[in-house]
């Protein structure tokens, strides 16, 4: 068993899809060269079989809408004085601006300068997002 030190103040993002923790950090704009972070990747999960866990020391909050986009099944624990004082769930935002980019090479976003990357929630049941411009499904 590998031991990872607990954090006394900060945030624990649990149930992150296995192998995606670095990508999630990137989308959350958390700089791994500056923040104090513990990453646990591909660990056992009762719920999903395998998962990643992200612990961020001295962080007060996390963008739950961006998290909803990239890891909709994750959970967020807020830690104060070495105790979990609050549990938060990611939200599925109706609209997402400049978080992900459209992968469709025929999309106008691939050529037009200074254009916002806009996505909308097209299927709340599956968490599917589509590009506002070309309707291509988002690829994370």
């Amino acid at each position, binding site marked *: 068993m590998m031991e990872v030190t607990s954090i006394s103040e900060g945030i624990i993002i649990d149930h992150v899809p296995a192998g995606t923790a670095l990508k999630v950090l990137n989308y959350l704009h958390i700089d791994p060269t500056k923040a104090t972070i513990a990453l646990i990747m591909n660990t056992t999960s009762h719920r999903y079989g395998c998962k990643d866990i992200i612990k961020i020391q001295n962080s007060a909050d996390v963008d739950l809408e961006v998290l909803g986009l990239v890891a909709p099944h994750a959970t967020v624990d807020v830690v104060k004085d070495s105790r979990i004082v609050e549990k938060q769930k990611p939200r599925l935002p109706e609209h997402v601006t400049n978080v992900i980019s459209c992968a*469709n090479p*025929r*999309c*106008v*976003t*691939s*050529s*037009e*300068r*200074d*254009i916002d990357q806009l996505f909308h929630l097209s299927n709340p049941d599956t968490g599917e997002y589509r*590009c*506002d*411009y*070309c*309707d*291509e499904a988002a690829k994370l």
Partner: protein
Amino acid sequence: MADKIPPVQLSKSQFNLVGRSVVTLDDVSAPQISYLLRKARYISDHLPEVSQAAAGKILATLFYEPSTRTRLSFETAMLRLGGHVIGFAGAQNASVSKGESIADTLKTVANYADVVAIRHPKEGAALVASKSVDIPVINAGDGGHMHPTQTLADLATLQSRFSRITDLTIGLCGDLTFGRTVHSLIETLCRFGNVKFVLISPKELKMPQYVLDRIKASQSCTYEEVTDLTAVIGDLDALYMTRVQKERFFNEDDYLRLRDTYILDAAKLKLAKPTMAVLHPLPRVNEIATEVDSDPRAAYFEQVKNGMLMRMALMSSVLGVKLPGFAEDDTKEVRA
């Protein structure tokens, strides 16, 4: 037969399209589509009366890729309303060749024109255009994405042939995978309901699942997928033929193999109802034999005229110009 355009029962603000851009047909409600169909029919019957309705208005046709038919249709529509036309066709002639963005081109043109029709090879270009300016922008085709006025032309043709756009069995034949016109037509007809779709295609060019899901989500529309046109042609009220588009294929061999799968000729037409209407968004390659052109069931050149009439109806609506004698309220129409 009495016309059966679904009744327009809207307050003035609800069918008011003044100043609105039309990027997709989602921007236009079903009652507003009915209103446009009624307006186009009025225009068809009253061309002299509406010939100066948009006098002093200017349409800019910004065509970043060639589409002679659509551009001429928009331009003729504006000229027949008494307005003027400026624009370019082909990006090599435009400032885009110097690297100008769509947004900047639109912001410039908005100082000259009252309404814009834009065609662009990139999907979503019309949305970019419409977000850039306050004047109405009409999407005249953005890549393989949307072409709302083509769908309006298709609806107007069904309306003129059958006096209704519901309670029909409509066959859609050919390239159902990449054919944006058929996707848009199905989605729009599903908003009105009571249509049976017969989807005729080779297995490589079947209808995408999201379109099938849209039909399933409709309360009253149904579909069946088949590969043999001759087996079903006798059941159809309308047959919408599509071109297998070379530009949608990366592989020349696949294109050539699939191009000739369905060709509508006089022999196949013998199996069809005498009242069936043959539609096609044009241009055709070889999917409809020229011998069909003289058959009264051929409706595809009529569709071109209906496209112009619907563009007249749409542009006069977004510009907010009054058509003499046309009653905005269904019950007050004045017959000239």
